[in-house]
């Protein structure tokens, strides 16, 4: 069979010896040819309506898949069932005609035999893409995330989240704002012992038997494990603990506050209460043990703080909390407005309660670093590619430290090195082996050790398979749908506060920013000014089912008013016209009609609650009259998806009168009367 497939591999110079060899192999040739003909005839018989092969120069596709997979539009329900040959995916808006199959499914479309067309073992250069990675093909052209490709989107996210872009060139993957912490002044923050433990195994603590336990840091750290030998570890720690810029000055608290608080027995408890009130856990998770089960509670924007008291220098902590950007300019932590009292009790809580005396257990005694160790450590820092993600004094960022992966998805198996790995010789198995344990395919690999769940491995494989490089199929470039760059640039005082409180870390603005909290692109049309000021001063929960809440920034009245004005002026939706709805025209009769519509005809209470009754899918509406603008409510009732694409509130066909009545009713729902009663009198029912 090998001979049959590659008749051209005989070297031209062996022409003299070719004839006898051919004579010997002739029967085999004949048998193969007969088999091939027979196979094709059988395939043709299977296909009741033989279709013509596809040749699309535009897409660089030439294939005869249709010989065995006839396409019979429209597909019958039987064809929709899985494992059915000849199935058409009717929901993909690219119908097979003209596109063919191999553009998405890959495989050797020009092969004449079933095995050669499909199986990686027989078609090493163009293997068929397994169905579970099919989303990779959407990514060939669609560089922006699609709703129907969650696995691809997750893989792309992980490539960015785990900083693969730090070392590898990966086209189209977002380069994170911050690859790794700046290490310029790391010695002022943590001890050499902590660095030793972290570098040895960033992920978890090891128990006595050497098994990995998740009792240390529970979150999967972005920092991978570099397999460092003992002397390498010590040298690297020596180098890092020599990185001490200006020493951190201990913050001097107001002596009156220290005197008043120092001896109170519940100092740490007061600190914990303040810590919770300020919602630090919205970004930083804490491990909480309830009924014998330990769980992480909180968001994952910042590092886990369960044992941070045993990690950081106690003098560094207040300095950091007061002004993170002074120590680390690229930090995304907001600069809170602290009172001395709050700062004192919160730092006391962190250093007294968020600790673990056993954290540094097993770390050997580290002697003072010698200049030699520091020199070797610095060399190792560069050799291991640490400077790809971390800034250190006198070092440039190492770019493309690892091999470029921008065309890995189209790599031929013959170019991959499998070493002694007991895995199938195909690209997807190679990717998964490399991601699971880089040494399994190459014992001298520099790539550090990561830990991915099996679902994440599949997602990463999908994303890597979607990167076939520009050269692999230049025709694809012509139909590529690029990713839209998102940006939001506030100006003036708004920009200063936006940067200080890092609004974009959690909120989206015109497609730019975090996804933890509500999209604020149209907040200026939605919320009333006074409500915004009150909320910024003291954030309340708006949805009963949400656990994470906006932290309390302790901002001044002036700052809150400034932000509310800037939001009201800039973040406006073009479809919401404030002049279109005049609340002065609302009558008690309208409100009564609206209440009836709300409770009976449309049964809004199935999802929204007012007071204690109702569902908790949508926001709580007890105070909506003070919260939202009437123009926004009317526009929302008319077409929710126009204001929030993909929003779950169903669009209904309401008459203009019904919209007016419902708006009038919702505007009567107030928990406190406005300071200057401008709305209709006697609104409360």
């Amino acid at each position: 069979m090998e001979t049959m497939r590659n008749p051209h591999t005989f070297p031209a110079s062996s022409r003299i010896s070719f004839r006898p060899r051919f004579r010997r192999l002739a029967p085999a040739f004949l048998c193969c040819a007969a088999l091939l003909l027979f196979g094709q005839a059988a395939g043709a018989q299977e296909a009741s309506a033989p279709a013509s092969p596809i040749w699309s120069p535009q897409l660089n596709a030439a294939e005869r898949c249709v010989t065995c997979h006839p396409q019979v539009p429209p597909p019958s329900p039987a064809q929709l069932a899985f494992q059915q040959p000849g199935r058409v995916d009717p929901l993909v808006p690219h119908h097979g005609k003209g596109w063919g199959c191999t553009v998405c499914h890959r495989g050797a479309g020009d092969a004449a035999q079933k095995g050669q067309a499909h199986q990686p073992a027989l078609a090493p250069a163009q293997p068929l893409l397994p169905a579970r990675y099919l989303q990779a093909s959407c990514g060939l052209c669609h560089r922006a995330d699609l709703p129907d490709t969650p696995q691809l989107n997750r893989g792309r996210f992980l490539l960015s989240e785990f900083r693969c872009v730090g070392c590898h060139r990966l086209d189209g993957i977002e380069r994170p704002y911050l690859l790794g912490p700046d290490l310029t002044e790391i010695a002022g923050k943590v001890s050499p012992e902590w660095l030793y433990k972290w570098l040895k195994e960033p992920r978890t603590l090891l128990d006595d038997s050497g098994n990995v336990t998740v009792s240390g840091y529970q979150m999967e750290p972005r920092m991978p494990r570099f397999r460092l030998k003992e002397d390498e570890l010590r040298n690297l720690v020596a180098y890092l603990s020599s990185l001490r810029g200006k020493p951190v000055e201990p913050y001097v608290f107001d002596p009156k506050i220290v005197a008043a608080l120092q001896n109170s027995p519940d100092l740490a408890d007061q600190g914990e209460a303040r810590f919770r009130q300020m919602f630090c856990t919205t970004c930083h998770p804490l491990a909480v043990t309830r009924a014998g089960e330990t769980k992480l509670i909180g968001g994952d924007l910042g590092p886990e703080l369960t044992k941070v008291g045993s990690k950081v220098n106690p003098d560094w902590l207040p300095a950091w909390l007061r002004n993170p950007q002074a120590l680390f300019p690229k930090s995304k932590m907001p600069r809170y407005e602290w009172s001395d009292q709050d700062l004192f009790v919160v730092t006391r809580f962190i250093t007294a309660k968020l600790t673990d005396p056993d954290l540094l257990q097993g770390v050997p005694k580290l002697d003072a670093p010698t200049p030699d160790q520091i020199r070797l450590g610095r060399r190792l820092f560069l050799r291991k590619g640490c400077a790809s993600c971390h800034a250190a004094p006198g070092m440039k960022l190492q770019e493309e430290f690892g091999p470029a992966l921008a065309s890995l998805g189209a790599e031929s198996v013959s170019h991959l090195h499998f070493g002694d790995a007991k895995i199938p010789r195909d690209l997807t198995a190679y990717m998964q082996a490399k991601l699971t344990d880089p040494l399994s395919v190459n014992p001298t690999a520099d790539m550090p050790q990561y830990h991915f769940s099996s679902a994440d491995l599949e997602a990463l494989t999908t994303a890597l398979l979607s990167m076939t490089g520009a050269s692999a199929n230049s025709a694809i470039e012509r139909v590529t749908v690029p990713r839209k760059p998102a940006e939001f640039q506030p100006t003036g005082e708004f920009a200063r506060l936006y940067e200080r409180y890092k609004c974009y870390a959690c909120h989206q603005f015109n497609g730019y920013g975090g996804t933890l909290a509500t999209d604020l692109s149209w907040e200026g049309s939605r919320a009333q000014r006074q409500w915004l000021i009150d909320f910024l001063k003291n954030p309340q929960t708006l949805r009963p089912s949400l656990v994470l809440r906006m932290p309390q920034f302790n901002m001044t009245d002036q700052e809150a008013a400034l932000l509310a004005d800037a939001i009201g002026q800039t973040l406006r939706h073009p479809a919401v016209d404030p002049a279109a709805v005049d609340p002065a025209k609302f009558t008690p009769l309208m409100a009564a009609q609206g209440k009836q519509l709300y409770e009976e005809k449309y049964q809004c209470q199935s999802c929204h609650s007012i007071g204690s009754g109702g569902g908790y899918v949508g926001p709580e509406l007890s105070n909506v009259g003070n919260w939202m603008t009437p123009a926004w409510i009317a526009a929302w009732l008319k077409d929710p998806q126009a204001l929030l694409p993909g929003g779950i509130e169903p669009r209904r066909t309401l008459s203009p009168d019904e919209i007016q009545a419902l708006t009038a009713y919702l505007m009567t729902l107030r928990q406190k009367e406005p300071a200057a009663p401008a709305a209709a009198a006697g609104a409360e029912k």
Partner: protein
Amino acid sequence: MKNRLAMLALLFSLTLLLAVIRENAAAQSAPRPKSYATEPDWNDPQRLIPLNFQQVRGQRLFYQYCVWCHADSTPAGPSNRSNLNPVPPLLNDGAVLNGKSDEFLRDIITRGGRALGKSAMMPPYGDTLTREEIQAVIAFVRAVAQPAFQPVAGH
């Protein structure tokens, strides 16, 4: 010469046999069902239900729009289902939903419960979701149904 030919024939048939075995081994090495994606059986999370493309699209829409009232738990925590009276059926409840035709399900999703004399708490999604999207949700419902959905002849 005769011996040689026999030898060659034997060698050739062995190669063929090997190729067939390899083909089979390759087919058997795939550990999971040949499908686009899977959804765990709600009653037995160890069992994975294979889904085709349309059903996967339905799955995504279900977890975006329907899960809040038609499942016992949601990605955000407890479900809103217990708040409602009458209690909405679980989406995998074959005992209730297998008896309904595709047309009925399409109608109630499109026009809401009130239009069909059912609970008005089921809102209409005809202006929010496209016809194809609603069809995809129905395909997903059929895929996860327990007891399994048997398509009626002529469907």
